[in-house]
């Protein structure tokens, strides 16, 4: 951990030396949080997932904002949120306002992101904001946390906000050097942790983690268990820079075809493929890298956590 105290359970667990796991929740175009709260419950039950990311309009789609679901997941379920905030839709004034609101609501982690461009989403004609970029947002958060002022130095009544924040890094980035240099600049701003985009290639992931070691900041490596062939296909085709291994795609497709009409058998077959792929993957990351943990982006796929993490110890109170 850097100079800053660990305010969040996530950062405290990392500081205590646990190999941590985080999950992911995605508020969508929906008038209910039932599914999200249910997923959060299931994550909490494992006692192995210390916090869950709550996404902020991924792929540029117009979804429910991430602030309220983050708060409710903490309040109703008791699972800590990693509140994702992109700089796509809000200028510095709105970002500041949201962050202090989040602080008042007891949120402890922010994940800073640039955010996918609206031209990828479902409101393609929309205007993007990007008043400040994600690096500048890191600087703004450091000022709010360490100095207790807004970006222009005006005091926040009540003082410093008690939060930790992270930035993202992309192991699939090609060329990689500008990405590493960019992460370095965010580290200079004072990030508490780094969370990576999903990795499927173990050698590439290890190599990337090696490149990040120089920063001496805890890194959570992203993995993406594939709930269905459809999701895997979408991910492969539409998520920038991510390609799902062809063998994995084939296996998922076959599992769905072979078990058509038999849901339990299909689920069992899909889970088996994911466990066979990701269990050794995560174990290898734990064993042979300095990663602080793994971020599992298994959205609405909470049934996988128990079998996937069976060999890892409980550490969440």
């Amino acid at each position, binding site marked *: 951990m850097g100079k800053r105290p660990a305010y969040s359970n996530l950062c405290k667990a990392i500081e205590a030396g646990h190999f941590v796991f985080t999950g992911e929740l995605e508020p969508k175009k929906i008038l209910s949080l039932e599914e999200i709260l249910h997923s959060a419950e299931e994550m909490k039950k494992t006692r192995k997932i210390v916090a869950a990311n709550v996404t902020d309009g991924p792929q540029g789609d117009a979804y429910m904002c991430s602030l309220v679901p983050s708060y409710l997941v903490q309040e109703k379920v008791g699972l800590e949120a990693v509140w994702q905030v992109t700089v*796509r839709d809000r200028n510095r004034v709105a970002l500041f306002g949201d962050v202090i609101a989040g602080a008042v609501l007891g949120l402890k982690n922010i994940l800073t992101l640039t955010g996918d*461009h609206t031209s990828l989403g479902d409101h393609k004609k929309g205007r993007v904001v990007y*008043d400040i970029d*994600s*690096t500048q947002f890191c600087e703004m958060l450091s000022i709010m946390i360490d100095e207790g002022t807004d970006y222009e130095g005006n005091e926040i009544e009540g003082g410093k906000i008690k939060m930790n924040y992270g930035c993202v890094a992309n192991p699939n*980035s090609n060329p990689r050097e500008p990405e590493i240099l960019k992460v370095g*600049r965010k580290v200079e*701003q004072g990030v508490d942790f780094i969370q990576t985009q999903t990795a499927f290639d173990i050698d590439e992931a290890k190599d990337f983690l090696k490149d990040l070691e120089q920063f001496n900041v805890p890194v959570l490596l992203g993995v993406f268990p594939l709930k269905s062939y459809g999701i895997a296909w979408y991910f492969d085709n539409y998520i*920038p*820079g991510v390609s799902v291994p062809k063998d994995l795609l084939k296996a998922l497709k076959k599992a769905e075809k072979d078990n058509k009409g038999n849901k339990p058998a299909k689920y069992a077959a899909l889970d088996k493929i994911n466990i066979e792929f990701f269990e050794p993957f995560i174990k290898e990351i734990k064993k042979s890298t300095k990663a602080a943990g793994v971020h599992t982006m298994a959205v609405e796929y909470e049934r996988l956590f128990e079998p996937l993490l069976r060999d890892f110890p409980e550490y969440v109170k």
Partner: protein
Amino acid sequence: MIITQLKDIEEIYGYIEPYNKILIAGCDGCCQPPRSLNEAKLLGQLLELKARTKGKDLKWKAITVLRQCDDRIAATTVRPLVEDYEAILTLACGLGVVMMNKVLPQKLTFPTQNSMFGGAQSNGENNFIELCETCGDCIIGETGGVCPRAGCAKHLSNGPCGGMVDGMCEVRGYTVPCAWVEIWKRLKEFNRLDLFKKYRGPRDYRTSTSPGYLEVYKEYTNVEEEKEEVKG
């Protein structure tokens, strides 16, 4: 150059539908592709045909102006003609449309173009491209001559985002190079990655607050001072 795109003929005709006699003014200024006398004549012919399909006999005259965005040039060229016409159509960019309305207030001037951007011409690839967005806060000196404001869809100041794949940008389907990868390549070539690594703080948007304004003679205040010194 100001890059413009011709509006749909239906939209243009919609503006002039109430009139029977119009003046069509091309511009010899910086508009590209060319929006001059020939283009004005061509548009006149098209509108005349369009009017005929609606049973109307449209009268028009095509002229061209050296620079419609210069108030003196626009006024002196067009003012002697306007009385004979009910309305004006201009092929100039938005600057020309606004200026013509300003210096010839007795008539309405309508646009025929959508003004796209301040662009440069690339002859090899046969296209126009926005290389500068005139933001009023130039940082190209730190970025190897590649502008990350005009070049990056997210206007980032500190390097590429996660939407960069194999050096290309997520916007426009990975067909446009990521400006920040281009900047990195360029600075690396000259062993100036120190400039790439430099943290750039938030931009001061007061430099690009609309309407942009600059007093011409303020740029030359030193001339005044020199005069005073001579006097003294």
